């Protein structure tokens, strides 16, 4: 079965649902079909993917030594109990 043809507006409206993997297989296939043929929507999709990847990469922050010591003490405490 051929995927339904979506308009650019429909694709943009559902783009984040698609990127968040909230769509079912058929809906996702409709979006992918459009993205493979529409440069504008494809660019938008790539842009949002790139931004969210950068956001996810920014999630780490060096744990302060104080926290590391606290965790070690905490585990030592359980060991003694």
């Amino acid at each position, binding site marked *: 079965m051929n995927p339904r043809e979506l308009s650019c507006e429909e694709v943009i409206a559902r783009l984040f649902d698609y990127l968040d993997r909230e769509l079912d297989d058929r809906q996702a296939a409709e979006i992918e079909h459009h993205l493979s043929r529409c440069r504008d929507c494809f660019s938008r999709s790539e842009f949002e993917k790139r931004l*969210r990847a950068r956001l996810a990469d920014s*999630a780490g*922050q060096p744990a*302060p030594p104080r926290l590391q010591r606290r965790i070690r003490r905490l585990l030592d405490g359980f060991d003694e109990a």
Partner: protein
Amino acid sequence: MTERDRRARRAWFEGRLTPLLDRLYGTALRLTRHPDDAEDIVAEAVARAWRNLDELRDPERFEAWLFHILTNVFISEWRRRRSHPQHATEAETPAPDELDGADFTLFQQLHQPFLLWWGSLEEQFFNSLLEQDLQRALDDLPEPFRVVMVLVELRGHRYAEVARLLDIPLGTVRSRLNRARGLLQKALWEQARDAGILSPGPAAEASGTKGESP
């Protein structure tokens, strides 16, 4: 359990925990925004994980399991604080002016329909975007939006899970997420513009400036 078993168990736990610690702390910091609170919830999550290690059926799922505990610790702490008015600093519903720019899209500001040989605004933007810029933009989101954003974008939770964890309707998860994204992108745009990173080219001016006040 023999002494040797106990030592092996502890070594296994620490071996798994150590490489995750920076991300646990970073996630906790994005959720709470306060270093002391972030340390508290990480410590509590680690304590719970260690106490309940027998409940972890599949050792390969250690990371997901530990982050799930972290999220739960944060949410119960968040709820507890909200029931104490002296700690409830942020309202459930953001003020209308906090919603300004909710439908802003960075893409519209940066996208040029054809590639220029000296590079594009998009490239300029991404090349100069620092971790601190992203962290600041996220931290500045009103709390209900920030929490949903962290759970979905940083932790990869499904909308239904977020709705269940926060005890809010699915539609609220969606609308908060949409607004959070608009506000985050607007903040990033303003940061980049104020830092003089983006020399506004003709393409940026020609494309829509919806959501941006003059």
